[in-house]
């Protein structure tokens, strides 16, 4: 396990690159409008873009050794999008990744997707930016890209873009887990982009503009809105509750975990193809929760199912959330205090040779299901060094035995390899893969 320096330092709230924030642009054009100098408004905006200006306050640095949006303190909102690549032309695909990188660098800094922005371009052309984030701050927007196995080889096994030789073995399709009810239209994808921000409009704006830039090269396959982070990714964040009302993911990997991140999160040189060193794997699972039946379950049974108390999140054998669960402890009746099928036992690193993941999921409520029930659940996202040794064994144990399965359904699934970070202005997403 190569002990590289931890990376948290280069990921904190960092001054964004020079250029004016969306809010400042609006202010400038607003003044022009009030003065009745309609035609001058565009010129003001363009000039503003050309100048170096104060950095945006709540921007997360886009560039670094690793992609942002992984150990970054989990934001409140998500828009996740999976795309199919619809071109056969490798050059078009690489050109898109370059364009996306440039747009992502701009948007994460609080700027418009394209150079002339939402209002600075020619009046007869559609604006380069869709505009709904014009008066909004960066809101800690991060954009994280990943590549699915189907990008390397199609269903017939053909090498799509001359990169099949670089397919990492760990990007293997997930096995079928008992109880899976996966829907193809909510699963898979050649590319993914995870947009996280503290303002849902900023996250949606980012995905919308990237999708627009991608027309003709990629097509949106599925996407998911999420609210309310379900994980803590830094020590400063408290463990949030899932929609079942429980603290889940107490043992999450966090930004401060240093060498443990190298061991459990970041792909190391020698793990597989060199292009992915410094990257990571992302497993996404759309997990519907049957909240109506869960809500009719007694508190005692709910706590037995999780193996934790609902109030503090402490394991049933402890007093505090972070107390180590004592899986050997037995009660007066001689049975284990934490049941053999309890969620905390089945998912705990101790049961899987210490396997940890960096969970970064979000709640979803996609309206209702037409049968008088909420269409709600967990959009599970977990980053890890090798899904075969982390997500797969944990999920296999959960799928076999977890009592929680009575209340959840896995309906969507995907695995992506997230390349290392974009290093500098000349770098782009996927450079290490496509050369």
């Amino acid at each position, binding site marked *: 396990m190569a002990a590289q320096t931890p990376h948290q330092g280069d990921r904190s709230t960092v001054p964004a690159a020079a250029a004016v924030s969306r809010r400042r642009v609006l202010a400038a054009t607003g003044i022009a409008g009030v003065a009745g100098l309609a035609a001058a408004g565009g010129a003001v905006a363009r000039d503003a873009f050309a100048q170096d200006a104060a950095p945006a306050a709540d921007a997360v640095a886009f560039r670094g050794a690793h992609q942002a949006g992984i150990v970054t303190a989990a934001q409140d909102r998500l828009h996740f999008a999976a795309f199919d690549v*619809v071109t056969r032309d490798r050059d078009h695909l690489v050109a898109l990744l370059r364009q996306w990188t440039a747009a992502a660098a701009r948007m994460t800094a609080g700027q418009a997707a394209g150079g002339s922005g939402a209002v600075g371009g020619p*009046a*007869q052309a559609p604006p380069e930016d869709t505009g709904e984030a014009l008066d909004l701050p960066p809101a800690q927007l991060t954009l994280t890209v990943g590549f699915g196995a189907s990008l390397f080889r199609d269903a017939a096994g053909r090498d799509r873009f001359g990169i099949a030789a670089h397919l990492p073995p760990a990007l293997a399709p997930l096995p079928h887990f008992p109880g899976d009810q996966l829907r193809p239209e909510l699963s898979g994808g050649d590319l993914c982009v995870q947009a996280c921000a503290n303002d849902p409009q900023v996250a949606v704006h980012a995905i919308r503009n990237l999708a627009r830039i991608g*027309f003709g090269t990629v097509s949106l396959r599925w996407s998911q809105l999420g609210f309310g982070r379900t994980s803590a990714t830094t020590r400063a964040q408290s463990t949030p509750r899932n929609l079942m009302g429980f603290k889940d993911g107490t043992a999450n990997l966090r930004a401060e975990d240093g060498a443990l991140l190298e061991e459990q999160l970041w792909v190391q040189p020698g793990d597989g193809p060199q292009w992915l060193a410094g990257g990571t794997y992302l497993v996404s699972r759309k997990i519907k929760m049957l909240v109506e039946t869960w809500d009719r379950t007694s508190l005692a049974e709910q706590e037995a199912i999780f193996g934790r108390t609902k109030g503090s999140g402490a394991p049933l054998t402890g007093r505090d959330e972070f107390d180590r669960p004592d899986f050997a402890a037995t009660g007066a009746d001689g049975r284990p205090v934490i049941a053999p099928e309890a969620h905390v036992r089945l998912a705990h690193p101790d049961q899987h040779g210490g396997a940890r993941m960096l969970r970064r999921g979000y709640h979803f409520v996609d309206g209702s299901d037409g049968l008088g029930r909420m269409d709600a659940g967990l959009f599970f996202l977990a980053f890890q060094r090798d899904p075969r040794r982390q997500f797969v064994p944990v999920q296999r144990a959960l799928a076999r035995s977890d009592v929680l399965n009575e209340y959840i359904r896995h309906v969507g699934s995907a695995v992506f390899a997230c390349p290392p970070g974009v290093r500098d202005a000349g770098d782009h997403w996927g450079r290490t893969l496509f050369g």
Partner: protein
Amino acid sequence: MRATRTLALLAAGALLPAAAAGCGGDDRPAASGGAIAVTSTDGGCEIARTDAPAGTVVFSVANKGAKVTEFYVLAGADKVAGEVENIAPGLTRELRVELAAGAYQTACKPGMVGDGIRGAFTVTAAGAGPAVDPELTAAVARYRAYVKGQTAALLTLTTQFVAAVKGGRITEAKALFPKAREPWERIEPVAEIFGDLDPRIDAREADLEPGQAFTGFHKLEKDLWVTKSVAGSGPTADQLMADIKEIAAKAEAEALTPLQLANGAKELLDEVATGKITGEEDFFSHTDLWDFKANLDGSRAAVEALRPVLVARDPALVAQLDAAFAAASAALDRHRAGTGWKLHNQLTKADLKLLSDAINSLGEPVSRVAAAVSR
């Protein structure tokens, strides 16, 4: 047709409702002789000059009244050549409009209701007007020839369709319905210039307000496919024929601008994206792919007419357009059936997604044609 009309934007010569704050400015042609000052008050509409040479005419409209106002330039009684809306009290907004020689009316509309305070405005032949790129003039001539060909086909096919309906020959009428619509759908952005005629000919039942009469192609479509009787369809058929004759004559006579060609090409693809892929257009007959193909053809014809201009100004865009048009045609060709097309309800969701992707891929470069033409 679409539920919402962008008539004012598309209307003859309406280059720009140039007033929105922040619209880019330096790419527009300079007005000869400077802006014409218009002062709108709650009871008056003062115009500094009532004539201008042909070309780009710029009005600077100041609202000195207490009510929100609008300013229009009208060709004839009610054909909008250009407009600027929502001018708040105290504000000054600009209208730039391309006007050919002829008689116009101006109108201030304080309170934004009624016919407005009208005045006559004359545009004289441009002696030393701004030079027009002869390639643009040629492009418009090519496209007008295309429109003429389509209106001729529209008249012929509508005549046959109406005869079949009135003769009670339902099978024949059903076969002619999608065919008669093809020339119509190829030039629909031109038809939309003429206010009431387009909804009379092509309104969908769902677009109507309570009390509005349901007439035109889609009423006959409902008679043929749902009611399955044309016993009472005669008057609708006669009205359709009369309306088609009127619009054909108007469309042929209409002087178009290069910008209208460009915007029309985009509008046709928007029609595909919003009406045909969803199956809303031919809700009863499901013959949407005939309209799809016709919209695509019409869009391509407008772009083809502009090709020499685009080749000179933005060759990369031309390459992109050619590839995207070819891809969209190929995607649609997979659904040919006999001499026509599969019905909309025979397409799977996966089929529709491929078509939608093709139109989205094409729509983006086509949306950039207008800027290339107007610079």
